[in-house]
């Protein structure tokens, strides 16, 4: 009896779909890398021990943030997007205006960032940060 010789076969793992998966993952990482660009608002803090600068009252404009995150501009309640035009008008009249930012201890941080953002957009260069109650 003759036994048929079994043909040796080379077992292979098909890698055809590997490149497809690699490309899909590549597109995913490319898109997420493009989205993860970090941004920020730069602050130059005064150095500890620096004497506080004396500023005449006529150059000071007070922006207050209460515990709920509402804004008051020189005592008048205002919306967040109302800060920039009001401050820009003031800066046109008095370019050396210093913004005095009074922030309540329980005010949410996003309200503080919104205020700083608006102040920066209006073109103010000097901000004085002060605790605004609740501490």
């Amino acid at each position, binding site marked *: 009896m003759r036994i048929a010789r079994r043909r040796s076969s080379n077992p292979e793992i098909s890698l055809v779909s*590997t490149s497809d998966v690699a490309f899909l*993952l590549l597109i995913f990482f490319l898109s997420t890398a493009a989205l993860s660009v*970090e941004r*920020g608002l*730069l602050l130059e*803090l005064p150095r500890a021990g620096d004497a506080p600068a004396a500023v005449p009252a006529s150059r000071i404009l007070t922006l207050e943030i209460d515990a709920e995150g509402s804004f008051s501009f020189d005592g008048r309640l205002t919306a967040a997007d109302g800060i920039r035009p009001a401050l820009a008008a003031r800066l046109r009249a008095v370019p050396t205006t210093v913004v005095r930012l009074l922030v309540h201890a*329980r005010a*949410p*941080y996003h309200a503080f960032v*919104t205020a700083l953002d608006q102040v920066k957009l209006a073109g103010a260069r000097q901000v004085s940060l002060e605790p605004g109650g609740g501490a």
Partner: protein
Amino acid sequence: MADIAMLLLIFFMSTSIIQSHQSTAVRLPGATAGERLQAEDRIRVSVGPNGEVAFNDARVPLGDVGALLAAKRAGRPGLVVTLYADAGTPYAVVAGVLDQMKAARAPRVTLATTKRGGA
């Protein structure tokens, strides 16, 4: 072609792992005037929604931030501290961190934000 794709894939996977550095879950506030952060000499300070503080990914008490900063700051004049604070964090916690930075004589601080549309 597939080899190049794999190489690029490894590159993006490794860089994305490096970027996932936040040890505290932080939802950043939005800002329009935020500038793109440069890849310069930076230290990361994170503040979570419940006031938990992390210094370069390691949880630390708020009172230790100043000493850690002062130690890291030595011999690095161009050092910038980036503050990743959660949008809902009470301001008092952030003010405490800023006070520590001021005491550590770290004058340049960047408040990390997300991009908000419109100007």
